[in-house]
């Protein structure tokens, strides 16, 4: 499972030099179909431009303007210099938090404050979460609501162990702020086609099996 930024970052970064023109930068963005371009000079990060920055300095297609302006302007004149960056040993979770809080689309990955190591985008983070939640092995899913007390999860796992069934993944989100019920949700993927006996035993402990049973009423 990818935990660290260096596990999922792109190492071969497409970048331009501060002395490239805006026109050249636009071309690089278009050709590579990327939305963010770091401005790098001898592996030192100098700034970032996004496709939005580039669009905002491009002349409108509706009026005839001097395209020469794009040829004359250097990218260093329009780039953002106070760049939010991340370290290769930061967690993917930290990357997700920074992207989300600052409403940005990419984070250059640097060491030593400005040495380019790679880049990580919102798409990379999303892809790693999809993989984490995804189906890599055949199994059945059970979703439970169990009391928020030490040892309850262990009881559930004990039942699963007794049935000799392998666990593919367990997902237990933190207790939400609004959860006053003093219970916790767990989602377990089990390596079996028949979780019915496990479900019956868990119910016997008085724990709630949420889904899909509750949809159709009792079976």
């Amino acid at each position, binding site marked *: 499972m990818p935990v660290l930024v260096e596990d999922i970052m792109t190492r071969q970064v497409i970048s331009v030099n501060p002395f490239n023109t805006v026109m050249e930068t636009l071309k690089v963005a278009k050709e590579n179909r990327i939305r963010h371009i770091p401005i790098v000079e001898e592996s030192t990060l100098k700034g970032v431009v996004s496709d939005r920055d580039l669009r905002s300095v491009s002349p409108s297609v509706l009026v005839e303007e001097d395209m020469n302006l794009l040829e004359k302007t250097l990218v260093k004149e329009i780039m953002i210099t106070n760049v939010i960056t991340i370290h290769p040993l930061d967690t993917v979770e930290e990357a997700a938090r920074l992207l989300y809080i600052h409403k940005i689309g990419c984070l250059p990955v640097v060491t030593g404050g400005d040495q380019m190591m790679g880049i990580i985008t919102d798409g990379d983070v999303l892809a790693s979460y999809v993989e984490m939640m995804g*189906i890599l*092995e*055949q*199994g*059945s*899913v*059970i*979703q439970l609501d169990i009391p928020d007390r030490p040892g309850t999860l262990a009881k559930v796992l004990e039942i699963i162990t007794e*049935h*000799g*069934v*392998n666990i593919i993944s367990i997902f237990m989100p933190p207790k939400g702020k609004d959860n006053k019920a003093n219970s916790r949700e767990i989602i377990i*993927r089990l*390596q*079996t*086609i*028949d979780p*019915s006996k496990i479900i019956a035993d868990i119910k016997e402990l008085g724990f709630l099996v949420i*889904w*899909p*049973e509750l*949809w*159709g*009423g009792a*079976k």
Partner: protein
Amino acid sequence: MRTAFIYSGDFLKYRFNEEHPFDPLRLHLTYDLLMQSGLLRDEELVSPRSASTAELEAVHAQGYIDAVIRASRGENHEDFAQYDLGTEDIPIFKDMHPAAALAVGGTLTAAELVMEGRARHAVNIAGGLHHAQKSKASGFCIYNDAAVAIAYLRDKYDARVLYLDIDAHHGDGVQNIFYDDPNVLVISIHESGHYLFPGTGDIYEQGSDEGYGYTINLPMEPYTQDGSFVSLFEAVVVPHVHAFSPDIIISQNGCDGHHLDPLTHLSLTTKGYLQIFHLIHDLAEQLCEGKLVALGGGGYNTWQVVPRVWALLWGQLVGEKLDGPLPEGWIKKWQDISGSVLPRFYCDDPDLVPQIPRRKEIEEKNQIVANRIMRQSVLLL
């Protein structure tokens, strides 16, 4: 012979253990029901042959087959775990190789009869073991009989094959084995894998490379009922099958989508199954001179559901309408042994159809899924 029924008492040797939910007795109960009702005649009965190792190797890895053979002899080896042999779902049992190879052979026999024109349709209720993977046992399935038969049909007859799977679980084994093959259209309609085993079968699984567009999945919401299930089958499956125009149809008729099945959450009744069997039969008659191999599959309500639903399948293929009571003799013979209340009629009482609180939303969601499949369809373009 119009329709062949492949059967042998040896089918019952595919038995993991006494507590295991995959109970071969359901095969015998179905056979006995058909015999007692007079629906199955002696001349329609055909014994299965066994599949050879070479035939199994068309879809299964040599190492895996070898492991099953060793397990079958009662040996115990460390490498069994990598093939998922000896799990809760696939316990090892004595002579499991010949038992599994016979189920495959039954489907090969059925395919041969149909292709050689000796039967218009052929039924093997011991087949339909659709979860078995190239190198792995899975979901009660050791060898993938449908996949072996498809490989055989491709190799020997160069036939374009439609594999049509109505089991409540996604037919993942068959899908994976023919994922890049444009000569095999794999269609599976099943309960969504969001919670149910094996978890796959999303609409975005469409095949790869040359086979892109030749895998179609219809994941239905849990608690889907007859109406929605059948209408989506008509709207999505039927046009795709017409567009593909197969030489032969292999259908997997798992009946675990019935509302009385303990393992899944679909909410079908005999009414829905009859309509689906009718549609599959029609497709075979319209597109491939009747060439249809109908297999069994899942079905874990051994007493109340499986024998009736598969009798309805047989009835459809031999042109008998089954809307009356079950034979008295059958009920009398099995009532005490069953330990459950045996139904008295072939068809479910329409008054006992379960009420599903979120029915409207479920049907709406299914419709959205169907619309998405039709929009992304490669075959119809």
